[in-house]
């Protein structure tokens, strides 16, 4: 044996940036995450050329999955053109040569921060969600070791109590995004800071979702056709954002999750948050041959 046999030929950068051992660890952990839906799997989480908190967890999953044929879409707050989405998209393309797209229907791999696209995802698509804080119990238990024990014991009493207190105090559950949800009837997970509007899209979805927190070094997954149930009381139904009746001022799309744009006169206008969906709606309105996929919501109502 020689020193050379221990190493590899020099290359300026590994394909997909991560080296083989980093990828193998992520593969092993992701398989277990799929096998135990919603359970947070600790992983080493190598440093990547982006700051922690900027999508490094999602990036490591994408870098592991990507190949020359993977068509990649990256969104941040629903927008493909947001600066950080543009930066991640450029990085993924630079380290892999994979083609990129903004069209949800054309993507094989979608890396997203804070949104699930409005068009339904298919059985062959992977959604990678960036996760700032993987621990749904953190508001009631900031200590990660204790929280882990609580998951082991399925001890979610304090979580329920917190929701109950909110209802008593404010007449409703005050959780905005990151709505805690029970996966396959066992683990409470955070769906990442997606709006409540998007959580229902995960329930019995056809696609695979992998959620990864690079800074906190945890990943979890929701396989296709898996129950994802927001924590609610029988007599207080789950409430998504009241965007059913809003219309996008730019595209005319109605009944989708919107960005509110404050106006000088004190009022607000709205634009659809899924930017490429908005673009496609405009182009279709202009008579261009654009394919718009089936959407999870119809006229503001969830269909399943």
């Amino acid at each position: 044996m020689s020193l050379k046999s221990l190493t590899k030929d020099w290359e300026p950068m590994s394909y997909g940036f991560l080296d083989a051992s980093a990828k193998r660890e992520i593969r092993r952990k992701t398989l277990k995450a799929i096998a135990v839906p919603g359970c947070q799997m600790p992983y080493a989480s190598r440093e990547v050329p982006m700051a922690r908190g900027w999508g490094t967890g999602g990036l490591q999953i994408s870098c592991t999955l990507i190949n020359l044929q993977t068509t990649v879409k990256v969104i941040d707050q629903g927008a493909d053109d947001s600066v950080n989405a543009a930066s991640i998209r450029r990085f993924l393309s630079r380290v892999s040569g994979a083609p990129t797209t903004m069209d949800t229907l054309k993507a094989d791999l979608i890396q997203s921060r804070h949104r699930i696209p409005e068009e339904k995802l298919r059985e062959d698509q992977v959604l990678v969600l960036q996760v700032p804080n993987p621990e749904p119990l953190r508001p009631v238990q900031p200590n990660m070791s204790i929280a882990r024990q609580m998951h082991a014991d399925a001890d979610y009493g304090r979580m329920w109590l917190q929701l109950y207190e909110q209802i008593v105090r404010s007449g409703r559950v005050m959780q905005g995004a990151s709505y805690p949800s029970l996966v396959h009837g066992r683990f409470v997970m955070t769906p990442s800071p997606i709006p409540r509007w998007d959580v229902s899209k995960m329930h019995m979805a056809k696609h695979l979702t992998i959620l990864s927190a690079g800074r906190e070094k945890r990943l979890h997954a929701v396989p296709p056709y898996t129950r994802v149930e927001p924590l609610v009381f029988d007599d207080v139904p789950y409430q998504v954002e009241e965007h059913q009746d809003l219309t996008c001022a730019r595209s005319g799309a109605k009944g989708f999750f919107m960005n509110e744009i404050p106006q000088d006169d004190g009022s607000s206008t709205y634009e659809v948050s899924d930017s490429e969906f908005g673009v496609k709606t405009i182009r279709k309105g202009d008579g261009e041959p654009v394919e718009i996929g089936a959407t999870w919501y119809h006229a503001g109502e969830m269909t399943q």
Partner: protein
Amino acid sequence: MAYVATRGGERAIEQSQRLFREEMGTITAARVAEIRRAMPYLIDRVMGEASLYDEDLAALALAQTGGELYEAVLLLRSWRTTQPRLAVAEPVTQDGLFTHRRISAAFKDIPGGQVLGPTLDYAHRILATEVLSDQDYRPEPVEPAARPSPAQQPSVAAWQAENDLLTAAEPDKTAGNDIPDITREPLLFPSKRAHTLQSLARAETGGVLALGYAAQRGYGQAHPTVNELRLAEGEVMVKHPRGTTFSAGRVKISQAEVVNKKGTQLELGFAATLGWNEVKVIAAATLDLNSEGAPKGSATEEEFFLYHTEGVESSGFCIHFKLPHYVTFQSSLDAMRDAKKKKAAKIPEPAE
């Protein structure tokens, strides 16, 4: 086509980077060499936090980031990710260190003597402003001691253990590839000893200082006495696949032992890092000293200080708040407005 008009993202980020880099101008090998020569302590700090010992790369990282320390460390850590692990070096022992400086606050004199070595501890901190009016500052030449101090010395804790003042830690027999490696495994709690020491070794200096200082000021139970502070060089001994052991070079190392009286024995806190960084190892050893039995959620609890002194993670998370959060904000606004509406309409509360 209003959406399309807003798609300036790619161009905007490109130009923002150009603006940042323009200020530093051309980076040359000479500039990198000068940074390395002129700022060894900065280089050491960066190498320690990056857990990557290469003075040239550290100087390059500083040149490339204009001295933005968090960026420099991140750059080195990301580069480190791409490097294969060729071998595991033999353990460096305290009494094998080539010692430049070794002092103890616990005793007036120690076996081997108090060796001050290079330090500004007793310097008067006066700016040499004359340099700015073109008078070069030339350091006075060092006069060698008549009797050089021994290069290798045992630790003070070893002497204390011999004298039944403290219980020496059981030597850890784990070797080579079996030593837990924080860069390849997640940190879980209770933390493995190797993970704790590795995490402290690459912790962010300011963060360790803040929490260590809190412990020293009284938020910790143990009051540290610096048993030994040492700046040294360690030989990196690796095994060639053919079986021979050879030195791959020396690395600068700093280490601190701090002790506290607990009943009839001393308890020991320890930290070491790559490069010479005294503040960091004293503060880190203080945290180590205080961690046993620390209450959950206190600043001296292992989980608390290891998570919160990780500089790449903490700085990254801090600056991530610059990213747009309007979707989550919208979601919160919706809940707030609805709650307000409910309050106004006095909708009865749900049955218990």
